[in-house]
Structure formats: C-alpha cells, structure tokens
C-alpha cells in the first residue's frame, strides 16, 4: 500500500517532528510512504477568512499534487477537513473541479483515522504504559469529520491512561486567523481550556495549530505540561511492541 503524506505548511515549518514520526510509524506498519515535493498549504486560512478565490488557487494546486496518490494522509485534523469537506464545497458550482475534489476527498485521511479505519490496526504497541495523557479534540476533526474514538483507542491500547478532561472537546481558541484577528479572545479561550486541564504527563492532539497555540500559552504562563503532536506520541506507542510485527507487510 502506498501513502502520499501531506505534511501541510504549519507542521512542515513548526512541527517537523510530527511529519517524521508519521513517516516512521507508517513504514513501521508496512506502508510505503511518499512525499510529493510540490505540496505546500491546503488553503484553509484563506478559506476560513472568506477569500475563496485564493483558497481555490491553493486547492487547485493541491488537487494537482495528489491526483495520482492512492491514499493521502495528513498529520492534521483541520487540514484533513479542508481537503475532505471544504474542497468539494469550494467547487460546488464547478462540476469538473468538483468531481476531482470529490475523488481526492474520498482518499484523504487523518493519520490516526487512517491507521484504525484503513489499516485496521488498533494496537500499535505498549510504548505509552504508565503515561497520563490528555487529548485535545480539534474542532474540525471532531465535528466536521467525526473523528473521535480513533486517536483515543490508539492511545489507550498503547497503555496510556487517558485522563478525563472536562473541556476536552471545547475549542482552544486557535482558529487560524481568528487568533490573529481577535488575539485577546483567543488567549482567553486557551486560558479557560487550560484552567480545566487535569494533571497529566502529556497533552496531545492531532492538530498542529491548536498545539502551537496551547503550548505557546503554556510556556507563557509557565505551566508544567509537555505538549506533543499525536503522530509523535503514536510513534512512541509503537516503540515497545513485540507483537506489532504481525501487522507489518
């Protein structure tokens, strides 16, 4: 099986480790990984801010880049939502582009979702034994794509104890340009979310933007929580796995 990795701009620049972990993890699971070099940004910032012409330019570029891929996997929930839900939306009045967007939509997955739904793997290993983990559900992954159990299953099966978090499904306040346009409101939302964070070893999420926003706030307030991208945590999960070889190939 071949997967084209779409690392997306934010992860490429600021969370390169998430991309690296995704590659290692997918290979570990017997998947051939490629990285189409012309890829850039999915266009979500422009789309969300109302600049649909600009978003269409970026979408058209991305459609070209991934046209021949068997599967497209992203270590980012909201960029997955952009490709899967909003690309077809962008082209709803343009039948030819729309059917291309739909074709891409059908083969695009968020990383944890891909592992569970397409590869049929729900246990990566036992590398998270004893770790207390809080999971932040990015809004688009959760509400737009309905990805909720997949990451949790992978974490729990790797031995992590998922600590209940009152605000686990509340928006962290990132929202792309929202956090630039309304910085005070955005920070206040992060504070509300963090004020309910239970004591954990690691805070993780499939969404890089949310993590940059939250970890920045955590650093600013000098809170003591490690923040790691889901891909990295899942790769860690796979580190202690006598039986995982059975899934490979």
């Amino acid at each position, binding site marked *: 099986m071949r997967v084209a990795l779409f*690392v997306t*701009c934010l*992860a*490429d*620049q*600021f*969370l*390169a*480790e*998430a*991309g*690296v972990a995704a*590659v290692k993890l997918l290979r570990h699971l017997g998947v051939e990984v490629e*990285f189409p*070099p012309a*890829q*850039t*940004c999915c*266009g979500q910032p*422009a*789309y*969300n*801010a*109302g*600049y*649909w012409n*600009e*978003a269409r*330019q*970026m979408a*058209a*570029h991305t459609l070209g880049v991934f046209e021949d891929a068997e599967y497209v996997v992203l270590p980012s929930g909201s960029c997955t939502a952009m490709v899967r839900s909003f690309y077809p939306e962008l082209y709803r009045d343009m039948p030819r582009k729309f059917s291309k967007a739909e074709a891409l939509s059908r083969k695009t997955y968020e990383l944890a979702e891909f592992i569970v739904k397409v590869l049929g793997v729900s246990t990566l290993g036992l590398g998270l034994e004893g770790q207390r983990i809080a999971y932040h559900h990015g*809004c*688009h992954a*959760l*509400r*737009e794509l309905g990805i909720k159990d997949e990451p949790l299953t992978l974490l729990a099966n790797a031995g992590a104890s998922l600590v209940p978090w009152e605000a686990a499904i*509340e*928006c962290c*306040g990132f*929202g792309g340009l*929202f*956090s*630039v*346009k*309304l*910085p*005070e*409101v*955005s920070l*206040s*939302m992060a504070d*509300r979310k963090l004020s309910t964070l239970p004591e954990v070893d690691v805070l993780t999420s499939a969404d890089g933007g949310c993590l*940059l*926003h939250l*970890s*920045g*706030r955590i*650093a*600013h307030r000098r809170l003591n929580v490690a923040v790691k991208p889901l891909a990295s945590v899942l790769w860690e999960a796979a580190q202690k796995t006598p039986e995982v070889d059975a899934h490979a190939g």
Partner: protein
Amino acid sequence: MQVKANDYPKESARLLREEPQVRESVTGATLNFDRNRRAAYAEVGAEAWRDWAERVKNHVLTHLDSYLEQAERALIANGVQVHWAEDAEQAQRIVAEVARAAGVKKVVKAKSMLSEELGINPMLSSMGIETLETDLGEYIIQLLDQPPSHIVGPAIHLGLEQIRALFHQRFGTPPDATPDALAGVARKLLREGFLQADMGISGGNFLVAETGTLALIENEGNIRLSTSVPRIHLALVGIEKLLPRFSDLAVFLSLTARAATGQRLGTFVSLLHGPRQASEPDGPEAVHVVFVDNGRSAVLADPEAWETLRCVRCGACLNACPVYRQTGGHAYGYVYSGPIGAVLAPGLVGLEETQPLPYASSLCGACYEVCPVKIPIPKLLLAWRQRAVEENLTPRLEKAAIQGYAWAMTQPWAYRLAAKALRLLPEKALDNTVVPVLKAWVEGRAGLKPSPKSFRELWEEGL
C-alpha cells in the same frame, strides 16, 4: 436600536481586560445551561425532533406569504387587531398609536428581544409613558440601563454581588440579602406595576397560522400577568415565528425549552386566543398583534442567509459558544449576540455596520451541534465572510497578505524560499514583531519557533 457591532474587536478586548467578572459569570451560567440542555436532549430522540423541526420551519419559510394571510384571518376571527410593520419606525408608530388611542400611561413588558430590536422602550419613554420590564433579569438590566447580554438570560453577565449592591443602593436591602429576598423585593414592585398598567407588551415565541394561537414560554409567570391583567395586550411578532398547525406546537414548545434551559417545558406556557370573551372573568379588553418584518423578508430572499430565520431564540448556541463565553453579549454591539447574532445582524442591518461579527467565531461548530432547528451557523458565517471579501470590507493589508500567501503557496519554489527566510530570522525575531499582524499573537504565547529543519529538508536529507 443603536448598532455598535463594528466595535466588536475593541469592545471584546476591553471587556476581557477591564471586566473579568463578566467572563466568570457568563462562563459559569452558560456551561450550566449547556449541561442541562444535553441532559434534556438525551431524554428524547433529539436528533429526530431536530430534523422534524427543521423541516417544519423550512416549510413555513418557503410558503410564508400564504401562512401569514392564514394567520391574519385566524387572528381577526379571534377578535385580535392585526398590524403590519415593515421596519422599526413603523412598528414604533403602531405601538405609539395604540397607546395614544387608549390613553395609556403605564406599560408592563414581558421579555421580548424583538422589542429591544425595535427600540420600543425609548420610544415609549419619549411619549412620557412609563415602562416596566417584568422579567426579573430584564428588570435588573433596566435598572442599570443596559441592553440584554443573552437571549434567554438578559442579566447573565452579572454576579450575585453586583445585584446585591444594586438592590442595596436602590431599595435599601441588606448588603448580604439572599437571592430569594432580592426576588421578593422585585416581586412586590412588579406586582404594583401589573395592577397599575394600562397596557402589556409581549413578544411571541410562536404563532400558529391555523388557529391564530400566540404561544409564550416563561418561568416566572410575569408574561402571563403582563398579557392578562392590563386592559390592552400588544404582541410584537417577527414574521418568521409562524407554525402551520396547532399540533406542531407540542414539539416546538418542548424542544425550545429543552434547548434553552434543559427544561421539558417552560414553567408557564400561555396559549392566547384574543381578547376576553363575555363569558370569561378576566383577560384584556383588546389584543393587538403586530407582525414585524424589519429586514426579515430581505434575509428570506437571500439564498445564502435565509436559513437564519428558522431560529427560535432559545440561546443554546450562545451557551455552547466558547467565544460568547469570554465576553457575554454586550461586546457584540447588537441585540442578538453570540453565534446567531453574528449571522442575523449582517442580514438585518447590513454587513457594513456589522462586519466584525461573522469573524467573531473560531468556526468550532459547537453552535450547529446544539441548535434545535439545525441552523448551519458555521456555513452562514463563512458565507458572510466571503461577502465581506467580495464587497471589499476586509482590511486592505489582510487582503494583500492573503493574496501574496496564495501566490507563494502555488509556486513551490517561493514556498521553499519563504521557509528558508523563516529560518534565517534572528532568534527573537518572531517575538519582536517583524510581522506586525503577529504582534498580539506572539505576545501572549511564548516560544513560537520554527523547527530547526523543516520536515521537507529532513525528508530530502533522507529519512
């Protein structure tokens, strides 16, 4: 009413800085409302109810002209006097004429967001008519001369301490009076108001076209008194509030109460059918219904915005909204705040005066998830944003930045160059506002640093 929605960015920041107790009160109350809603939804097949309610509302909205005619006929047959107001000015004139013709001196008001939208109170006071708000929350903010902060809980932004201080100052209650004692004082004052008033003004949660039934939901009993004690009752009803059949009411009443407060039904539900009949011991001598448009038919005609009109004003989207929770409603500068306000305001008063509101959302989607009539608020927010871009209402710098970004992102070489440049910035550059728009962003979030090597570089070096 005065619209100050363009101040949203400034006003929201000011509230967070200067009145942090607002955030505390609003967050506590909305989380509570939302928990109750979830429990009340879980008791019924909420999904099926929502689908059904959406369909009924869509049906009414797509046949609105004939249902309005039917409603008018039914109301007249019930002895109600029907008026039509195209805008706020006409609505004010109608209310003023009814009041003048009947020699009204005092008015009691049942809580009505529409009357806030239309500016009825200031108009009445300019006529020398005294108006008393009878909903407890509404009464409190009337004392403070503030607009409502929430569709259902107008005084949601106030803490008990502030209300204690207000009552202590106005009515001499002890500084540590219990909530019950405070309510008792208000109740006495309001009772006198009911007995003295010549006219009661209400809104309308629903109006049944088939029977001309006006339905009102509440918890305090004040609406019932406002609409039945004074000799005249006038109801302001938005044209979108119609339901086709009497039998539709049952689910809508329950769905609305469940969404709003988590109750199965409001403590009081009034179904009104016109003035007192000869055989009846009480009730008003005359009942007036004013159907109000005030921008609604323009929204209805807008293929991208019309779904907004399904709204039953339950406030569930405000309760679920993490953005609303930070500031409460006053920051929005318009009578309807929160997610529904952000999509209704541009429709009713125009995008130019309300441009920041569609951006007052992180697009998290919680509002859509809870809405009892499934209004796709995130989609509507995006549609208004698109229109803001089309009409050149967004900042010039932003537009240029996004255009430049889109261009760079479709030229892989430019993307690479930008990534290189990002890494060549001096250590503290991102902290020091090389990019002005990022200033506030970086100020509140420490340590935004690019990875030492981008993923692409690592990949090319061989993974």
